[in-house]
């Protein structure tokens, strides 16, 4: 159809305009449907959670059933420890495997590793929990923070690997060549030039993986298990924010429900903050180098 026929035929033009506005409306509707649940969750959690939030929540241990008050200090500390253990496993393994795929491996090996990474990122998190249960909890004969952190670390690996690989691939080949042409060795080029140039993107990936792991409940159910007491040694069962929320939410007590809302609010707020940091980091990246 040529331009002239559109101009000559006004009904055709009207039909096109209608189709255009209908499709545009559908797009807007889809966008609203995407945003709505998030906004709803955010406002509802804030509304229900903030009122139960007080200084005790961050400093006190859970009170026994029947007693009012108490907090989730142990769960907040526990989550931090679990994520710390997870990060110690997930970040180095993820970044190093990303470097290997992008910089060193032959194409068929990198295809295989990339495929396996994709599959791993699709494995349900509860399966990863069972895996950690099998190789750490059973031999140790007890639930532990170590097992929980291990499960979270496994969950972080695919995200970090993928983002590292993609960010390194974005680094222009000319920079690698420039460095090598100065008589700099391959590994130093990778470390000081390639990785450094891609670092802001990799930081983004790491933060996203941490935010994701912070909210995971399923893999902790039979690894870290949860704990109502103050516990910082990593070979013992340990409380975690999502676990505590789960336990409190299914309890029959109103006070515990309120605390679960407060916990949910804290968790969402943390994830939100991490995402915000990611935004700022990425914005710097694209306005600056690369």
């Amino acid at each position: 159809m040529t331009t002239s026929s559109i101009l000559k035929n006004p009904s055709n033009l009207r039909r096109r305009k209608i189709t255009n506005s209908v499709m545009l409306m559908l797009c807007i509707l889809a966008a609203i449907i995407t945003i709505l649940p998030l906004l709803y969750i955010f406002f509802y959690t804030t509304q229900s959670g903030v009122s139960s939030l007080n200084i005790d929540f961050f400093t006190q241990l859970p009170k026994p059933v029947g007693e009012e008050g108490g907090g989730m200090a142990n769960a907040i500390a526990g989550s931090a420890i679990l994520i710390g253990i997870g990060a110690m496993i997930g970040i180095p393994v993820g970044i190093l495997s990303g470097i290997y795929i992008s910089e060193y491996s032959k194409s068929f090996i990198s295809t295989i590793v990339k495929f396996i990474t994709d599959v791993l990122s699709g494995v349900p998190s509860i399966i990863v929990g069972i895996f950690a249960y099998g190789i750490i909890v059973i031999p140790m004969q007890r639930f532990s923070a170590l097992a929980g952190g291990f499960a979270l670390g496994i969950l972080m690996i695919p995200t970090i690997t993928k983002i590292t690989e993609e960010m390194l691939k974005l680094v222009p080949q000319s920079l690698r060549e420039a460095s090598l042409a100065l008589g700099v060795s391959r590994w130093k080029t990778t470390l000081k030039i390639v990785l450094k140039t891609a670092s802001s993107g990799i930081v983004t990936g790491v933060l996203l993986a941490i935010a994701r792991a912070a909210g995971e409940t399923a893999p902790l159910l039979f690894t870290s298990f949860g704990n109502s007491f103050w516990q910082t040694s990593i070979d013992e069962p340990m409380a975690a924010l999502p676990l505590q929320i789960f336990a409190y939410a299914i309890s029959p007590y109103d006070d515990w429900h309120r605390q679960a809302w407060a916990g949910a609010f804290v968790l969402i707020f943390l994830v939100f903050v991490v995402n915000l940091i990611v935004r700022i980091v990425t914005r710097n990246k694209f306005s600056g180098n690369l």
Partner: protein
Amino acid sequence: MMDIEILKEGVFDEADDSEKNPEKEYKNAVSTKDLSVYFNKRAAIDKISLKIKKNTVTAIIGPSGCGKSTFLRSLNLMHDLVPKARVFGEIFIHNEDINNFNAVDIRKKVGMVFQKPNPFPTMSIYDNVVAGLKLNGYHKKSELDEIAEKNLKYSGLWEEVKDRLKTPAVSLSGGQQQRLCIARTIAVKPEIILMDEPSSALDPISTSKIEELIYHFREYYTIIIVTHNMQQAARVSDQTAFLYLGKLIEFSKTRRMFTNPKEKLTEEYVTGKFG
């Protein structure tokens, strides 16, 4: 000016030189024997043999895809990075077989300036100049300062950047970036500098600055420059190699190449009949 210089010196008549000055002055900086590079099964360059004397500027010309860059990049072992590239034949750097060195040592001796200016985007102007030294573990600040200043002066950039050495290198203009890359290259004290169309991405004024540098650099370095620009080859080089379809068609003094070439193909190319 160039022509007069060459006429006066007349240094590149191969037979004469060796007798006049057998040892130091005219020894070969780079020579290749039957050098071929294959990508998969296709020969990008095919049995190229030539000898390049020390402290000369050699231009490599030829139509796109004739293997100019491939030839250049084989001289500092850049093909090591390309898994599908295979290199045959012999390369000698200062009469020593290139295989006697490892790639890192060769690349310290044989620097390279690329087509597109490629300063390290995460580094300041200063850090870019001394990048080769710092990355190789050299950290004495007072000496680095001196090296940075000296090399920025050599590359004619010092006056333009001396007040903003700590600003990002990517804030410079394209022509300045390229001179920064040249400063970075000479800071590691190479003996030979390979230039892969160093001014093809630059404006005429930046180009003339680069050409001026090349002209003066021959005192200290041996320069091999790939260029698409016939005038540039004529302006800066002492001798010119003409490559066509991976083969070395002619290699002779630039003046002769552009006025009275031996081969008909060369004549057709330099007069713009094809290419």
